[in-house]
């Protein structure tokens, strides 16, 4: 096989370029890569790959750089130098300042005021899909599943974490919608009114000039 690969004109690729290619592959791969996997991807012979890995190892020698080349059971991989871990921990443990996106705020508001509420209902009210916002809110633990609707759709409610983050003792403390209600004289139930407005919007309003 080795000879076969050497016969390939691609194998004439020079050593520097091969080292660069291997560097890029190791950078991208979440898992360690073996010399033979690298050879196949780079279309080079294993001895050349070994030589390139040697060159990379001396470039990424421990102590000199923030990234080191490691040889593990499964092959080769890049990892960060342990000396940089404090900084990395500070970076990734920053308090979540991720503010709610407009879509998430809308979805959360609908769940908070109408709970339990299903995804199709949320979509009808918003006029556009709420799937990714719902998923993020679930991941962040702000909403949780609350059984199924009469039509079999999963319904959602807000979580205890939601109350804590918004500084509420109970759902009764949610601000009175009347303060922001554009048509407070309307008597119908909030849910019906939201669905009606959502359906009216679904036709997409007039175009602003």
């Amino acid at each position, binding site marked *: 096989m080795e000879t076969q690969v050497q016969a390939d004109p691609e194998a004439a690729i020079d050593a520097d370029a091969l080292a660069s290619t291997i560097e890029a592959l190791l950078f991208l791969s979440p898992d360690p890569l073996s010399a033979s996997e690298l050879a196949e991807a780079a279309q080079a012979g294993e001895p050349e790959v070994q030589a390139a890995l040697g060159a990379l190892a001396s470039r990424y020698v421990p102590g000199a750089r923030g990234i080191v080349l490691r040889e593990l059971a499964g092959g080769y991989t890049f990892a960060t130098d342990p000396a940089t871990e404090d900084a990395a921990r500070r970076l990734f443990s920053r308090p*979540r300042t991720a503010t709610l996106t407009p879509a998430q705020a809308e979805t959360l508001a*609908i769940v908070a005021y109408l709970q339990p509420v299903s995804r199709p209902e949320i979509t009808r009210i918003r006029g556009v899909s709420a799937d990714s916002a719902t998923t993020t809110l679930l991941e962040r633990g702000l909403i949780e599943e609350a059984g199924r609707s009469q039509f079999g759709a999963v319904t959602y409610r807000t979580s205890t974490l939601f109350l804590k983050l*918004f500084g509420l003792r109970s759902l009764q403390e949610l601000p009175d919608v009347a303060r922001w209600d554009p048509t407070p004289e309307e008597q119908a139930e909030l849910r019906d009114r939201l669905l009606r407005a959502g359906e009216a919007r679904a036709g997409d309003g007039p175009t602003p000039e």
Partner: protein
Amino acid sequence: MTAVATLDLDLDVFSGPFDLLLTLVLREEIDLLELALADVVLSYLDHLESRGELDLETATEFIVLIAALLELKSKLMLASEEDDAGLLEMEPEEAAQELLERMLDARRYRSAAGYLRELLSSEEGVRFRHVPPPAHLRRTELAPQEGSENPEVLGVAIGRLLSMPPTISLRHIGTPRVTVAERLAHLRGLLRRGAFSFDEAVGEADRMTVAVTLFALLELYKRGEVDWRQQESFGEIAIQATAAQPSATVAAVAG
């Protein structure tokens, strides 16, 4: 504009090339309100079919122009009474300006789109690392602070969702008012002169009138005033009074 310009049209109110139509519309020699834009589109589709190929550039130009005409037309239809002096009086010059703006806008973003595609292809082969940071570096994640979110955000969001989009008033569009009583009188008038066909009864009338006429006919049938026959589906409907009239009158009507 060249290929679209020479598109030949044969419509109710106009026959000739598309660019001429455009000019006449802009010079207000053809009333946009009387022009069935759907027919223009159909002619264009026929034209495309006969050529068997789609020239994207021309197609885009056509779509932009027809969309602009549609918008002008809908503005004309919706123009409020107070607004009469505005759009209805739009000078050909202004209308041309409006069309021009639309074409420029469309061109502008079509070029920008081309630029973006070039930009994307110049980044071809650039990859980023998509590996989540190792678990041991994320262990110390801080919980978000209690009370860090403002509940008013939720109320504001609901308030926005409660607002109804503005409704477009359609009161300016003249709804053709055809009453059953009118059509009954019309049919009875025809009956007095003898037998006739449904097509003769409605002539070139609009769809609403046709529907109301049929309704009136049903009413007459129910009352036993008429007999009607149809030999085949979609065929002619022959109508005559139940007490048959002398055939001479029929000839008189036909003549």
